[in-house]
């Protein structure tokens, strides 16, 4: 099995799909000559040429709209947002055009498009460049929202997204690009709406996804040494949501902690908590808990940034309280 970085896995997924289907193109700021602000599209311009790997001006609303228009007539664009923070100036196109076009046109115009790019917090980038938008996009019917953690999941889910006939919001954590993991040889796809148990456990389930797992998994490891068995469920797919997977784990462990990098109020974890109390209330031995980013714009100071985010320490402390 090959060990790839997260960015290499994404690159492999796009390259393989583009080799198969001439209708697919990659468009965004710096994706071509610069080979990607985060080097996800390294080598792709040389391989596919300027027709299919297209540099755009700084113009998110414009090129998001161009992608959607092209998808209306059967092309299958991959639109890279340098970071999801910049998607906000394109949000009218994503919500009012991409998400609703198939519905408004009674199925005449499906929009097979992938919007992808770096999301989440990291690197002391401060308030305007450190934000998690999974909850925002998951709120919109018509969109699918994915946030993979491992290189293998990134590969399998990106391929599925490219082949899907709906607009997909594919959020890559910017601190994960260099992370390494085993990616099986040969082509494989991972279905949307299927979570993955990243660690088996019996006493408590932690539901999480994307970069927050960087804190969750080591925390679970340390807790195991104290004799506390934590199951870690990686959602991977936020919408569609693997409701059965979540409920099965909760029925097994009877306790749930949800850890997300996004803000607390109206965060996606609240939706997961609602699902659990509605469908598995009788299985719960403790109130559902959440650890999220603090309800503040991201501070720049290193200590404040760290304190605003979920962390191993916060998770360990919370789990100990819940297990008592």
């Amino acid at each position: 099995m090959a060990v790839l970085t997260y960015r290499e896995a994404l690159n492999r997924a796009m390259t393989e799909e583009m080799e198969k289907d001439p209708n697919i193109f990659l468009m965004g700021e710096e994706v071509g000559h610069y080979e990607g602000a985060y080097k996800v599209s390294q080598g792709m311009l040389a391989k596919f040429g300027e027709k299919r790997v297209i540099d755009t001006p700084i113009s998110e609303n414009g090129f998001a709209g161009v992608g959607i228009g092209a998808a209306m007539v059967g092309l299958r664009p991959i639109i890279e947002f340098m970071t999801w923070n910049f998607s906000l100036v394109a949000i009218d196109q994503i919500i009012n055009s991409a998400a609703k076009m198939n519905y408004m046109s009674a199925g005449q115009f499906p929009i097979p498009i992938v919007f992808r790019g770096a999301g989440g917090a990291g690197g002391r980038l401060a308030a305007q460049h450190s934000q998690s938008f999974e909850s925002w996009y998951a709120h919109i019917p018509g969109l699918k929202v994915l946030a993979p953690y491992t290189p293998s999941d990134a590969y399998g889910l990106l391929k599925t997204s490219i082949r899907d006939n709906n607009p997909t919001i594919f959020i890559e954590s910017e601190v994960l690009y260099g992370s390494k993991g085993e990616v099986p040889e040969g082509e494989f796809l991972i279905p949307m709406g299927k979570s993955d148990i990243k660690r088996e456990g019996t006493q408590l389930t932690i539901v999480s996804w994307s970069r927050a797992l960087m804190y969750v998994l080591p925390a679970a490891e340390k807790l195991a040494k104290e004799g506390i068995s934590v199951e870690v469920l990686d959602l991977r797919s936020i919408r569609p949501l693997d409701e059965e997977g979540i409920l099965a784990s909760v029925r097994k462990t009877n306790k749930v902690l949800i850890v997300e990098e996004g803000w607390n109020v109206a965060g996606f974890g609240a939706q997961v908590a609602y699902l659990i109390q509605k469908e598995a209330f009788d299985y719960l031995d403790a109130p559902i808990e959440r650890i999220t980013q603090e309800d503040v714009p991201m501070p720049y100071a290193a200590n404040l940034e760290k304190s605003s985010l979920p962390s191993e320490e916060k998770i360990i402390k919370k789990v100990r309280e819940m297990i008592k």
Partner: protein
Amino acid sequence: MSQPKTKKETEDLLELYRQMLLIRRFEEASAKAYSMGKIGGFCHLYIGQEAVGVGAISALEEKDYIVSTYRDHGHALARGLEPKSLMAELYGKKTGIVSGNGGSMHFFDKKKHFMGGHGIVGGHISLAAGIAYASKYREDGAVTLCFFGEGAANIGSFHEGMNLAAIWKLPLVMICENNHYAMGTPEYRALSVKDVSVRAAAYDIARDHIEGDEVRKVREHVKVAVERARRGEGPTLMEISTYRFRGHSMSDPAKYRTKEELEKYKQGDPLIKAEKDLVSAGWAQEELAKMDEIILKTVEESVDFAEKSEEPPLGWLYKHVYAENV
């Protein structure tokens, strides 16, 4: 443009007049149905602007694409969409052009390359650039025509779409139907320029500006832009000056403008102009009246069809939220 001289020219004008009259009568029937509570939502009528849509769309070929705004009834009829299915859509019936999912602002017809009425002012301009982009990508020779009002000329999507179309030399014709009011705001209070088409200079693309009261003149000018686009010479920004005789939508009494102003523009009614030209070219008034009768009947039939059609079944509520993967 001068009056038609030959029989061929006269017949040509007659056909364009017929299309304009169909729009006028369809809109009058829509207004009536709206007043009776049969049509919901907003209902933006095209009355007064018919020469723009009919003239512009008649310059296109079947393979070309049209992207429209929330004021899309006229453009749809000019493209040859069925009055019955359009009226049924206004009524929210299952027989509507988009099965009651869209209503007045969201007519779509894939077969006719009618790429939708879009409800967010100016948001559709970058979509139009995307459709034109696909034509260039595939080298299919099609041109995309995008309509918008002068109110949309101040939104980011207009500028971004125009810049992208310019740098990529997309086969796009952008038509600003300047009817002088963005809802209740007159253009002089909102636009930094008196003529939207001068903004083409900022993007180094072709421009044009005409009055939109003569349908054949509109077609001639749009044709020039369409041919330019088809030759691969890039987009054109046109302003076609026009006037809506009704309010912004059916719920707007249009108190921000004077009766005198309205009367002045009514003198330039494109239908009256075309009718006068036809009569002075020798067409009998009675024959025109006969044509009107036939059109009125067509429109009545569309209303009747809409009235009698069923509402969409409740089971369709979740249909089409997601496209199926085949």
